[in-house]
């Protein structure tokens, strides 16, 4: 029951936080500036407080440490998406979903080296 409540809390908090950051991106101009909000720490903000409460600070610190690798992977992912869309005008949905493989490759590649 406790685990179910935690999942529900994560769902609700995550939904609100991510929607707010996405809305911020919608109303800001120019587009490159709005793009900063696409890389906001929304999932981290939604989950870190809950993780600290349920698992403790040292567990959350390990998560934050490895989040830096995730951010590097996000950088490479966003560069790929940007280049493919601006230079080749490929389908946005196909490029943004397909390039997630790049995120996985970079994130798990670096993780396997540094762990």
């Amino acid at each position: 029951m406790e685990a179910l409540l935690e999942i529900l809390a994560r769902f609700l908090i995550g939904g609100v936080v991510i929607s707010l950051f996405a809305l911020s991106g919608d109303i800001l101009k120019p587009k490159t500036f709005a793009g900063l909000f696409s890389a906001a720490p929304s999932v981290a903000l939604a989950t870190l407080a809950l993780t600290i409460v349920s698992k403790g600070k040292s567990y959350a610190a390990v998560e934050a440490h490895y989040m830096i690798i995730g951010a590097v992977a996000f950088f490479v992912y966003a560069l790929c998406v940007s280049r493919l869309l601006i230079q080749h005008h490929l389908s946005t949905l196909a490029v943004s979903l397909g390039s997630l493989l790049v995120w996985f490759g970079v994130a798990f590649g670096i993780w396997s080296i540094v762990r």
Partner: protein
Amino acid sequence: MRVRINFSAAKQTKWHQYALRFAFGGVVTALTGLVAKIFGPEIGGLFLAFPAIFPASATLIEKHERKKKERAGLAGIKRGRTAAGIDAAGAAVGTIGLAIFGLLVWKLLPFCPTPILLVTTTAAWLATSVLAWYAWRKL
């Protein structure tokens, strides 16, 4: 180039698109928790910087831009995709702030009360991202 806030842009997004974002964001956040529970905090940590709603947001940007051009009687597909690509370039710059956020949380967490930590690191994310964006514009 000046940064502007255009509140009317929020009206372009329909209520079901907001609901979809909420649901998607909620599911991704819940899944991140499950990933950490199953595979441990290292793998869970990677997913704190997963581009979770990026595909949905980018597709929405393309759609809005395409419709805007089509209303003006122009072919909008190319322009829509370029607009989504420009947003992605901004996201790439924003990942510098994301990494700084992770670094500060990692280093400060043992010494800092949680509410102060989250406010401070969020402010650091915003400041770093904005500074990186201005530096990138100057290049």
